[in-house]
């Protein structure tokens, strides 16, 4: 068996194992010097990115991938002596999982490149990079796992490492305060998820998502299932920052270093993935998806509107962008919520699937432009030393590249063609309009307010007389921003590249819970 075959067979496990190994080795390697450790971290992140791309390829070519931890062979889902229950931890990679894994590893790689320069000269960097890799592990694990308890474990890895990273720059205690709030809120949420998992386990005697979904469909949806569903859905909505549970978002994103804000933003998209996975695959067959979809739509509308209006008020650049992440999450909830509300009806094929594709495409786009904006905010803070917009001005005189990158990101988030934000927003407007015109109107107003507040940032940070005599940021930060800008322009002009290989498989995978279940529990290719 060649190395290539070996990697292909074990790709789902390696996607977790490689960054995990990297995280554990980083503190030891860091003793040999910073440069060695950076080369190590970046090569681990690049290999993880390669594995995520490989997973996307495998899923698109061969269908859903199943990997059984400790199984012999690694595709043996149901051992002969287990009475038909998948007892081991099983990774199930479908289109949506591979999509989330790809965006997680991409932002990890970009943040790694960015932090080469931005964290230079700070203390405890071995732990910083170990936690960064652990955060990637958490996101990838949430995306790839097919086991509900394993999902909880990765959710906790995700939130603990993210909280520790938020407090990395203590910033007079403010960052610690933000991290404390984030950690408390996500811990109580994770405990609620654990409670729901215990309920589901007690009821269905299984921890595998496919098994739970199948048994739930056979026995019908009980009151305990409603409680479990509410616990899971509300917690994951909170973890992705939906209004009115968004208060940790501006604190956490606002106080973290720039690249960590971008990563936590994607970590919350991983929670969003978990929400969609639970709603569609686990509860989709049995629960009332219409009312569940409307619940998500209402959360999405609130998030969009309150997020963007609160953002306009802010004069701290990172908090402003954090509120915008709340409002962008609203778009995703709206798009996929419309898909969920129409699931199983004829409207689903008319516009529901298209709305889901819009929502999922928006996740990708949001990762690109929001990540870019957080990185530019980090670059500004790196040079100017303050995050207060009132004290900034005239930075475009000296930081030309940062200004251009910022402008690309701002135009993309505001939905100005030909950047990628427009495409996904157009898809959401067009399809949501058919369910209820009011939704599309709110979405369009929110888009306008987004443009207004990003023009405000552009004016106060980059325009005007030269207030600061600063240089352009170091090369590694520019490279990180350049990568994201390139993909923003690419997906803006050729949206079908992302649509064909990433978004459409993801939407189809979510819309087909039966295929997921049959693939895991026997049958299928």
């Amino acid at each position, binding site marked *: 068996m060649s190395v290539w075959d070996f990697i292909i067979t074990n790709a789902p496990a390696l996607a977790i194992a490689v960054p995990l190994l990297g995280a554990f080795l980083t503190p030891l390697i860091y003793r040999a010097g910073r440069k060695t450790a950076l080369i190590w971290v970046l090569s681990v992140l690049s290999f993880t990115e390669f594995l995520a791309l490989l997973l996307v390829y495998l899923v698109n070519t061969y269908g859903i991938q199943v990997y059984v931890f400790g199984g012999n062979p690694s595709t043996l889902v149901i051992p002969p002596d287990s009475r038909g229950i998948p007892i081991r931890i099983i990774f199930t990679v479908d289109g949506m999982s591979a999509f989330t894994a790809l965006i997680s590893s991409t932002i990890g790689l970009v943040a790694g490149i960015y932090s080469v320069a931005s964290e230079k000269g700070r203390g405890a960097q071995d732990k910083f990079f170990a936690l960064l890799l652990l955060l990637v592990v958490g996101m990838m694990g949430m995306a790839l796992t097919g086991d509900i308890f394993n999902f909880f474990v990765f959710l906790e890895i995700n939130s603990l490492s993210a909280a520790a990273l938020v407090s990395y720059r203590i910033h007079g205690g403010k960052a610690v305060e933000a991290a*404390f*709030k984030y950690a*408390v*809120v996500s811990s*109580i*949420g994770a405990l*609620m998820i654990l409670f729901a998992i215990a309920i589901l386990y007690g009821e269905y005697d299984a921890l595998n998502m496919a098994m739970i979904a199948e048994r739930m469909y056979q026995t*019908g*949806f009980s009151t305990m299932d*409603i*409680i479990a*569903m*509410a616990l899971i859905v*509300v*917690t994951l*909505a909170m973890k992705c920052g939906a209004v*009115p*549970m968004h*208060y940790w978002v501006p604190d956490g994103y606002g106080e973290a270093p720039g690249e960590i804000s971008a990563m936590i933003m994607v970590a919350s998209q991983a929670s969003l993935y978990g929400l969609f996975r639970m709603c569609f695959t686990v509860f989709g067959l*049995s*629960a*009332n*998806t219409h*009312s*569940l979809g409307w*619940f998500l739509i209402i959360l999405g509308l609130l998030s969009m509107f*309150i997020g963007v*209006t*609160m953002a*306009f008020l802010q*004069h701290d650049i990172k908090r402003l962008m954090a509120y915008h992440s709340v409002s962008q999450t609203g778009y995703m909830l709206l798009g996929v919520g419309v898909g969920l509300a129409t699931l199983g009806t004829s409207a689903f094929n*008319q*516009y529901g699937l*298209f709305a889901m594709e819009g929502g999922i495409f928006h996740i990708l786009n949001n990762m690109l432009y929001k990540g870019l904006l957080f990185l530019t905010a980090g670059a500004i803070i790196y040079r100017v030393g303050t995050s207060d*917009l*009132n004290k*900034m*001005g005239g930075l475009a005189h000296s930081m030309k590249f940062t200004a251009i990158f910022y402008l690309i990101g701002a135009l993309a988030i505001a939905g100005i*063609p*030909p950047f990628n934000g427009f*495409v996904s927003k*157009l*898809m959401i407007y*067009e*399809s949501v309009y*058919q369910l209820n015109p009011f939704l599309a109107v709110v979405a369009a107003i929110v888009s306008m307010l987004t443009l*207004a507040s990003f023009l*405000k*940032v552009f*004016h*106060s940070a980059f325009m*005007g*007389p030269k207030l600061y005599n600063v240089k352009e940021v170091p090369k590694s930060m520019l490279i990180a921003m350049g990568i994201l800008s390139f993909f923003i322009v690419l997906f803006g*002009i*050729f*949206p*079908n*590249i992302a*649509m*064909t290989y990433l978004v459409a498989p993801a939407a189809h995978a979510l819309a087909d819970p039966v295929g997921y279940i049959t693939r895991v529990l026997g049958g299928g290719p």
Partner: protein
Amino acid sequence: MMNPFNPSISTPSGIWNPLVWILVFLLSLLIAYAIYLKGEKQRKKGMQEEIFLSGNKADGNTHIKASNIGWGYLEAMKGYYKLMRDIHTGIINDYVGWFLGVLATMLLIFLFWGGAQ
């Protein structure tokens, strides 16, 4: 499978092609340039170079601070923003309380109106 390098996306009620949009954008730039060329050749020196802010002559410092941008909008929405600021207390107990509140709301909705299909 659709051609990934085909830039156009068909939506339920139309089609979106970024290349066409860029073409139209360039065309409108050309038209604007043409209109600009038709303009007055001999421009008068004078008031046109000077900067005014709200009708007052600005003394070189034209930079508006971030908190002052959108003043009218913020003033008009004062009540809404006061409400939102009061809700956002920044106390960790309230954060947990909001989470439990939404949890209770969803539980009530689904328990009373039924969660099954």
